[in-house]
C-alpha cells in the first residue's frame, strides 16, 4: 500500500481525514490497486468525486488531474468532460450511494443510456454518513439511523426484490458489479474490468462506516464487530437473498456491446462534416 500511495496519492492528502477504522480506506485502496494492476500512470486517469464521505476523502488525493462536482451532478460533468478527453484517457469517479443513487440518479441513468465511457465507483456506506447518519436507498431495512429512530421502513433499492444495478442495466450500462471491501482481491478484479470497459461502468463497493452506521444500526463502537457483521452479510452468490445478504459479483458485463458515446458523437460529427444524410446544410 505504501508504494501505491507514493505513486498515486498527493503527499499532503495522505493519510487523509477519514475516521479511524473507516472502510473507505479499503475501498480507495481497491481502486488504486486496480489502476496499478492495469499499469496506468497518473497521466492516464482523470479522477472525479462527488459529495459526502467518499468525495471529501478522495478529492484531490489523485496525483494526476482531478475534480469534484456538486452533489449528484458529477455524471453530467463527466459526460461533458468525456467529449473533451482523448478516448484512451480513463475517467474514474468515486462517489457515495446518496450521490449516485438518489440526488444524482437522473444523471447517472442518462450517462448509462448514452454509454458514456466512465467508471463510477460507488463507495456505499449504506446511507448518509457525512451528515451524521441518516438512512438512504441502500440502508438495510429496519436499520436505526438518526433519521429512522424506529428503524428504516421506506422501501429501498437493494432489498424486497429491488436491485438498483438492475435499473442501471435496463438503462444501458455496459458493466456493473457489486462487492464489499471485505472480499480481498475480488473487487479489484471487477474494478479492472470496469475501468477497461470503453463505456459506462459502475461498481458498487459496500464498506463499513464505523462512526455512524456501526454505532447507530449495529449498536457497537467495536470496529472488529462492525467488520464481522459486514463480512458475515457478504455473499458471493448474486442469487442469495438480498434481504439478508450483500449479494456480490459481476451483475452485468456487456463491454463492447454498444457504441461508446463520445466515439459515437465524433463519428456523427465527422459524417455531418462529410455531408452525411443526417446533417443537413447551411
Amino acid at each position, binding site marked *: 500500500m505504501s508504494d501505491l500511495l507514493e505513486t498515486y496519492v498527493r503527499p499532503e492528502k495522505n493519510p487523509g481525514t477519514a475516521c479511524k477504522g473507516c472502510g473507505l480506506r479499503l475501498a480507495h485502496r481497491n481502486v488504486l490497486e486496480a489502476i496499478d494492476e492495469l499499469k496506468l500512470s497518473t497521466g492516464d486517469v*482523470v479522477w472525479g468525486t462527488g459529495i459526502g464521505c467518499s468525495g471529501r476523502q478522495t478529492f484531490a488525493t489523485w496525483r494526476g488531474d482531478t475534480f469534484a462536482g456538486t452533489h449528484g451532478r458529477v455524471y*453530467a460533468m463527466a459526460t461533458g468532460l468525456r*467529449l*473533451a478527453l482523448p478516448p484512451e484517457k480513463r475517467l474514474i469517479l468515486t462517489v457515495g450511494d446518496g450521490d449516485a443513487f438518489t440526488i444524482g440518479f*437522473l*444523471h447517472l441513468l442518462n450517462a448509462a443510456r448514452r454509454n458514456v465511457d466512465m467508471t463510477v465507483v460507488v463507495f456505499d456506506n449504506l446511507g448518509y454518513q457525512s451528515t451524521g447518519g441518516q438512512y438512504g436507498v441502500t440502508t438495510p431495512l429496519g436499520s436505526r439511523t438518526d433519521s429512522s429512530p424506529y428503524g428504516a421502513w421506506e422501501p429501498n433499492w437493494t432489498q424486497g426484490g429491488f436491485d438498483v444495478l438492475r435499473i442501471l442495466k435496463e438503462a444501458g450500462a455496459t458493466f456493473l458489479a457489486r462487492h464489499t471491501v471485505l472480499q480481498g482481491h475480488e473487487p479489484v478484479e471487477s474494478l479492472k474490468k470496469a475501468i477497461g470497459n470503453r463505456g459506462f461502468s459502475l461498481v458498487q463497493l459496500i464498506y463499513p462506516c464505523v462512526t455512524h452506521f456501526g454505532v447507530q444500526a449495529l449498536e457497537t463502537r467495536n470496529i472488529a464487530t462492525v467488520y464481522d457483521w459486514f463480512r458475515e452479510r457478504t455473499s458471493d452468490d448474486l442469487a442469495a437473498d438480498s434481504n439478508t445478504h450483500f449479494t456480490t459479483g459481476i451483475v452485468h458485463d456487456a463491454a463492447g456491446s454498444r457504441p461508446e458515446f463520445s466515439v459515437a458523437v465524433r463519428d456523427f460529427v465527422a459524417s455531418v462534416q462529410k455531408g452525411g444524410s443526417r446533417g443537413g446544410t447551411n
Partner: protein
Amino acid sequence: MKRIFDTGNAAITEGAIRAGCNLFAGYPITPATEIAENMSRRLPQVGGYYLQAEDENAALHICNGGSIGGLKAMTATSGPGFILFADAFGWAVSSEVPVVIVNSQRVGPVSGITGAPGQGEFYLSRYLTHGGNYETIVLAPASVQEAYRLTVRAFALAERFRTPVIVLADQMVTDGWETLELPETDDEFAALGLEVVPRRINPGPEFYPASDEIDVPPVVLGHNTGAACSDWTPTDRGHDTEDITWQHKHAWRLIHKIVNNRQLIDEADEWFLDDDPEIILVGYGTPSRVIRSAVGEARKSGLKVGGIRLISLWPFQSHLFTRTACYLVVELNWDGQLVREVERAAADGSNVHFWGRCGELPSMAELLDTVRQLLDNEPLQRDGWRTEKW
C-alpha cells in the same frame, strides 16, 4: 459583411459559432428552443458537439465538464430553466470556469407566459447561486445585431475573467426578426470591436492565484498538470480547504478580478445627457428601444429629456447615475428590479420613478405622457400599477 434577415436566436447561434463554441448542452424551452435547434444544426458542421440534456441542471453541468476539458461551452434557456442553473453556475463561478449562458426572459413567475417578453431575472442573474462572495458578468442585448455582438463578447469575457458570463436577453430580442450583418473577414470582425480569445491551459501548480489579475489561463484537465478544481473553497493549488484565510483570498479574487477590471465589461448608451436633462429614462433590452424613440421625440418638442441604456447590467454601473436628476426606470416587470439599483446609485436629491409592465412593451406615447406629468409636477396618474414613485 453578409446581410441576412433572421432572429436573435440565429444571431446568438452565429455569434457562438464565430467565438469558437464547440459544445452546446441544453433543454428545450420556449422562447430559447430555437437556439438549441440552431446549434444542433450548426455545431456538427464546424466539428462541435450538441447534446440534449436531461434537464437544465445537467445542461450547465455538461457545459462545465466540457469546459474543464478545454471546450468552449454554451447553454441557453428561459426563466424556468435559468433557475435550475443555480447549482452549476455556482460551481463555475467558484472553480473559475469559462462558460456562456443565454437567458431569453419571458413572463414569470414560474412557467408564467411562454411567448411574451419579461425582465424578471435582473437580480437572479446577479445572484444565480447561493453563498455570496462573488461578482457576476451580465450583458443585455436590445437587438438582433447586438445579440450577435454580445454573444461573441460573452465568450471573450468568460475566457479572460474565467467565469460564467450571462447574456440576458428577452423574448422579443430572441424571437424578433431583424437585419443581421455577419462579418465575413477577420477585419470586418475586428472592426466590430470583437475578438476571439482562444482556450488556454493553466500549466499549474498555481491554479487559483490570490490576485485580481485576469487572463489567467483556466484550469483544464487531461494534460497531466495536476489540475484540481472543485466546489470546495480552494487553496492556490485547487485543493479543498476549511481554512478561512484561503476563503478570504478566494472571495477577494472572485469579486475583485471583476470589479477591478470592470472597464473591460462596462458598456452603456447615453442619449442627450450633455445639457443636464430634467428627466432621464433608464432601461435595458427591448424596452430601451422605446425609450430611445421617446427621448428623441421629447427632444423634438423641446423637452430636456435624456436616456441611459445599460448594455452591461452587472457589475452594476453606478457611475452612470451620479447626476442629480429625475430618473424614470422602464422595465418589463411589475415589481421593479432595475429601479432598485438606480435608486441606490442615484445622486442625492434625485427622484427615481418606476414604469413597469410585463408581457408587452410600453408605447412611446405612454412614456411621453409620463414624462410630461413628471415635468409638470403633476401627481403621477396611476393606470394599473404603471407609474410609481419608487
